[in-house]
């Protein structure tokens, strides 16, 4: 984690295409609206977290700036706000059964935070 704030992850492998498609399927199935900017940021964050799971410990220092650089956002605060809005829209949609299956609790009562959301889905991608 010494120099990870200066890395840019590039997608050249065949494995990354499969990971991209799996993440897209999960996110659309959970009800995240595709037109949100947060959709793109969350997808990129999940792929980055899949490769280095401990990046969620340094989420504001490392993950959000890297996503902002790759996805051409303004700054880390914008990324976080858009991710939060996308998760809010997903929790308000009608896909409560899938959300409950991933998170194990009723998301309309207690909304998961961005870091929880990203790391839960990345962990699920690891296991399946």
């Amino acid at each position, binding site marked *: 984690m010494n120099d990870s704030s200066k890395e840019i992850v590039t997608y050249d492998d*065949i494995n990354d*295409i*499969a990971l*991209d*498609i*799996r993440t*897209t*399927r*999960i996110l*659309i*199935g*959970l*009800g*995240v*609206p*595709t*037109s949100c*900017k947060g959709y793109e940021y969350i997808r990129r964050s999940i792929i980055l977290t899949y490769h280095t799971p401990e990046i969620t410990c340094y989420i504001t220092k490392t993950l959000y700036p890297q996503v902002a650089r790759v996805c*051409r956002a303004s700054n880390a605060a914008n990324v976080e706000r858009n991710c939060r809005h996308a998760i809010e829209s*997903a929790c308000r*949609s*009608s*896909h409560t059964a*899938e959300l409950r*299956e991933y998170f194990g609790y009723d998301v309309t009562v207690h909304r998961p935070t961005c870091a929880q959301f990203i790391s839960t889905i990345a962990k699920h991608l690891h296991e399946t």
Partner: protein
Amino acid sequence: MSAYNDIPTEFTEYSGEELTRQVKLLISELGVPRRLKGFSYLCRAIELVYMEPSAIQNVIVGLYRQIAVENNTTVSCIERNCRTAIKLLWQRCDTLKLAAYFSCNEHSNAPSVREFVALLADKLRRNLINVSTNSILGGDKT
């Protein structure tokens, strides 16, 4: 979660005529009536967002204006026609399956134009849709 077990190992990139054909097939399979002007406007919008994914952020200034210039109409005309097309789709088809597809509530209104176009362009880009075998909604959609 879903019944998909096959992950495509390579992307099929569509362009030009093939892209138009695929998008038209996709929208008509979903159930948008073909006779509407909004059908062709939506098709053009999905093509544009497919080729340039960041175009969905500027809907009125970018997308609608370009389609309006191509069709020699105004921006509000395009917007109204696209909205009518989606509304008719919502009225005709099984709203339960469509709502699950578009991440809406089945009792709420139709998805907005932006969400419709973004979702279909994204799915087409990542080959999550097989238009030829009519497996969009996972079965018959009568």
